[in-house]
């Protein structure tokens, strides 16, 4: 029997034995691919019927196609699960001595056995996945949702998922060969697959917990993309290859660079992990299945790899539970050491008597974990003290916390937090501005206490995030809490910089300008007043849309820094752009674009335009106001007080006069540098609609305090 014929013969025999797993894999793929596709096609057809015939073009088909389940990110999970199943079942015979005796005594070369088992498993995956992918495409075609793109997407998806399968499979094989039973192999394999993102998550959780200047935007960014970074595990290259994004839940293979890079990294991983797995297979002792861990040398390594993150996360967890308490953190750390030592020793040795063994690896893990925690808690590398020199900064971006809340359409059609958009697009280069910025930051770091209010004794701070692009190509992001006054000064300086103003202007965004000029697009706009109960009442007529953008642009050009920092934001213009071909998106997700433009009391062009609609945007209709609801939080005692001022109360007119004079409207869409802890919150109420104002401490009407009663729960909402 030649080695070639031996290979095919033994391979055929193995395939027969693996047939039950083929059936399992096929059924799983069948229910996840063609069946769900069928359900989705039916839903899509129902929606098309409901909306009637529309102008279908290839773009529409492609969008439907890409949105349909055969190409969803869920396939990644399916692929990884099949890799886990096949790797564990394919190699678990190594855990039983009688099976090892049987198989290894057969006249089959070990290298041949390695290949036929792995290739059999790969073929099981490819056949199950491939057939069901074809079935899915047939379902799509029969449903009328097919285009040439479908074949391309199918083939690329097949390739990428096959590579993902092999990479995950090899990692699971490593875990299988390192351990002596399939439960540990499965747990270990899953742990190895997620180890790199887990370490990234640990670093960013530590940064978020202990670094005062750790950026919320960086947090958001890391939170979203943490799985997309890295080269050691298959998750990141796979996600990059398929162009998967968490906020779309789709795989669209749109990014060719990411696709090629992802494929290359996956191939390298397959080679490296395959080599390691093969070496482990050859080195593994026949009796290894008697032990939980097959290789003695691997025990301390495995223990450290698991124990270090376990201790750090235990410390972090207790630190967070107890409101950032150091005592609890130390308790968590010690608990982490003890519990992980006991559990890991038991898992590794399979014997509770061994829980006090492996002390050396426990000590090493504890020391490393302690060093990691200390690096972050004591800021050993000066993360929080970082202030760049002017000549090391290529460009920088400054984002206020008020910028981050709404989503915004990126150039690539993805919605991202507005702050993220600004970080991506703002590239300020004014060295003088940078110098002022670093000056403010330096003062803030030395004077402003974080999460406290000591700048002038009672003010809130303003959250500011700065992204530095250095000349050496690094991107460094830090967040600061600046006292109100300092934040306002910085905002003035920024607003006097044209680059800063322009990047905030949606009309200067090319992709949005393109959408606005699309004649097929449906555009609507309305004015939302912050100073009137009749908000949403002004819907601009179609003929006023272009004059509206003109007025917005002129007002933005005319605004001065002081107009924004000292003036009042009295409303916003909301614009809705909807490409007609996309309006039947049955996923409920929208391809439409929503824009928001702030309106200040200094915006003469806008005020002029609104005059046509006989709309008084400067003051509420006080006749409608039924009462004032007032709350005040006493910062010193922690007690809140509240009360209602009815229309027949003499205090009503006094309060009305004071809120009109103050002009302090409670808006949060722009940085608000005038809100203080002990401010009085006033809501004018009309038919369950509210307008919010605030009065600063010292501006309260006399006798108002007598009308407020302490809240029972003592909390201010």
């Amino acid at each position, binding site marked *: *029997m030649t*080695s070639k014929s*031996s290979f095919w*013969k*033994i391979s*055929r*025999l193995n395939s027969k*034995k693996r047939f039950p797993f083929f059936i399992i894999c096929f059924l799983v793929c069948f229910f996840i691919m063609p069946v769900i596709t069928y359900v989705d096609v039916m839903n899509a057809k129902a929606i098309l019927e409901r909306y009637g015939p529309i102008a279908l073009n290839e773009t529409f088909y492609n969008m439907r196609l890409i949105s349909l389940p055969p190409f969803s990110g869920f396939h990644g999970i399916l692929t990884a699960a099949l890799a886990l199943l096949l790797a564990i079942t394919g190699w678990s015979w190594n855990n*039983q*001595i*009688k*099976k*090892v*005796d*049987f198989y*290894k*005594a*057969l*006249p*089959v*070369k*070990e290298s041949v056995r390695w290949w036929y088992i792995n290739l059999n498993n790969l073929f099981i995956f490819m056949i199950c996945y491939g057939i069901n992918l074809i079935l899915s495409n047939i379902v799509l075609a029969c449903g009328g949702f097919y285009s040439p793109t479908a074949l391309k997407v199918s083939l690329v998806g097949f390739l990428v998922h096959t590579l993902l399968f092999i990479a995950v499979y090899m990692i699971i094989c490593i875990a299988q060969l390192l351990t002596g039973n399939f439960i540990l192999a499965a747990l270990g394999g899953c742990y190895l697959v997620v180890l790199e993102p887990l370490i990234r998550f640990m670093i960013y959780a530590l940064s978020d917990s202990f670094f005062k200047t750790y950026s919320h935007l960086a947090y958001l960014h890391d939170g979203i993309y943490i799985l997309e970074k890295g080269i050691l595990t298959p998750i990141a290259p796979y996600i990059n290859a398929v162009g998967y994004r968490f906020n779309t839940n789709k795989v669209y293979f749109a990014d060719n660079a990411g696709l090629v890079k992802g494929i290359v990294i996956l191939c390298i991983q397959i080679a490296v992990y395959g080599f390691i797995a093969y070496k482990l297979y050859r080195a593994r*002792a*026949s*009796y290894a299945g008697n032990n939980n861990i097959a290789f*003695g040398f691997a025990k301390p390594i495995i223990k450290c790899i698991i124990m270090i993150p376990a201790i750090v996360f235990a410390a972090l967890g207790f630190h967070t539970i107890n409101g950032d308490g150091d005592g609890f953190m130390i308790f968590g750390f010690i608990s982490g050491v003890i519990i992980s030592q006991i559990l890991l020793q038991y898992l590794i040795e399979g014997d509770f008597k061994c829980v006090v063994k492996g002390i050396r690896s426990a000590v090493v893990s504890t020391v490393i974990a302690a060093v990691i925690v200390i690096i972050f808690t004591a800021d050993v590398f000066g993360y929080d003290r970082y202030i760049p020199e002017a000549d090391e900064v290529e460009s920088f971006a400054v984002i206020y916390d008020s910028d981050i809340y709404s989503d915004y359409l990126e150039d690539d059609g993805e919605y991202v937090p507005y702050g993220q958009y600004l970080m991506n697009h703002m590239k300020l280069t004014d060295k003088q501005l940078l110098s002022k910025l670093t000056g403010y930051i330096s003062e803030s770091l030395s004077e402003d206490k974080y999460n406290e209010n000591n700048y002038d004794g009672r003010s809130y701070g303003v959250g500011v995030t700065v992204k530095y692009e250095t000349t050496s190509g690094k991107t460094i992001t830090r967040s600061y809490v600046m006292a109100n006054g300092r934040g306002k000064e910085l905002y003035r300086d920024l607003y006097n910089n044209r680059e800063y103003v322009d990047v905030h202007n949606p009309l200067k965004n090319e992709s949005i300008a393109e959408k606005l000029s699309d004649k097929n697009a449906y555009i609507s706009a309305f004015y939302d007043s912050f100073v009137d109960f009749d908000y949403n009442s002004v819907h601009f007529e179609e003929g006023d849309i272009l004059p509206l953008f003109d007025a917005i642009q002129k007002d933005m050009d005319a605004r001065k820094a002081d107009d924004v920092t000292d003036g009042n934001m009295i409303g916003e213009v909301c614009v809705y752009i909807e490409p007609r071909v996309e309006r039947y998106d049955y996923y409920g997700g929208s391809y439409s674009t929503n824009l928001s433009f702030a309106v200040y009391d200094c915006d003469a062009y806008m005020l002029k335009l609104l005059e046509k609609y006989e709309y008084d945007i400067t003051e509420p209709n006080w006749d409608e106001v039924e009462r004032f609801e007032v709350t005040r939080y006493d910062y010193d005692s922690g007690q809140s007080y509240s009360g209602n001022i009815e229309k027949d109360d003499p205090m009503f007119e006094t309060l009305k006069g004071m809120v009109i004079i103050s002009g302090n409207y409670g808006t949060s869409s722009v940085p608000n540098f005038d809100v203080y802890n002990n401010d009085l919150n006033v809501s004018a109420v009309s038919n369950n609609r509210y307008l919010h104002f605030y009065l600063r401490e010292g501006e309260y009407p006399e006798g108002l305090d007598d009308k407020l009663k302490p809240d029972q729960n003592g909390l201010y909402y």
Partner: protein
Amino acid sequence: MIDIKNVTKRFNGYEAISSMDLTINNGIVYGLLGTNGAGKSTLLRMISGVIKPDEGVILVDNENSYDNPNVKKKLFFVSDDQYFFAHSTGADMAAYLQSIYENFDMEQFNKITEQLALDKDRKVDTFSKGMKKQMAIVLGLCAKTDYLLCDETFDGLDPVMRQAIKSLFAKEMSERSFAPVLASHNLRELEDICDTIGLLHKGGVLLAKDLDEAKCGLQKVQVVFESDADRERFTDAVKIVTSNNSGSMYIYTVSGTRDEIITVLGSVNTVFTEMLPLSLEEIFISETEVVGYDVKKLILED
């Protein structure tokens, strides 16, 4: 021929086989005897290529067996805990092995299973322990390999079955080059089957002996002497290995050929003499006593 040359195997620092030298010739039934932990299973695993020696070399017909399919084709290993595929029948296993071993004789398999009343179409999971052993041996026999390595496989088989298996071995050996190697911790399990015994102890070979040869060199005799002087003349003339007496009846195990002993007995005055058959146990007791071991503790106490 299986040639084990200076082989050492360690497990986690423990030396299971220690600088072992042993030769197993073709055409005989070789018994590997030793207590639990003596190294029998390790040795069989190394011969069959399941594990690799740390030191030394194991040659099967002058070729290394580890990861060598050409050599492994000549070997069939039946471990002490026989493995059959889940839910498989004897016929399934035979079909599988037929694909692996070119010379697997399916006809013989059908015939032997019928002779031994083993239902080849019944799931092996439902077999008794003894039946599984029989099935494993039959599969090994029908694989038509030159060497059949059985680890504790004969332990617990009833005498009828042992005799049947012995006959099968004898038939195979008469028809082709075939050498069963049987490992056991109990001498009594091997004595009626093996031609040669290797006694393993603490990872080494205490002794290896052809049984016929051993039997020729030792005789057991029961004798009543006319006088003490006759008895003394006899004991002076031969080498006594063991002696017992009940009244005037003496039973001796003595070194020497049968003729030599008869000649000596003829030269002294006796009332009664009888040459008794010598058990394997007695041979080993005598042999190992020479090297300072109490063989009863090693291989007879189960």
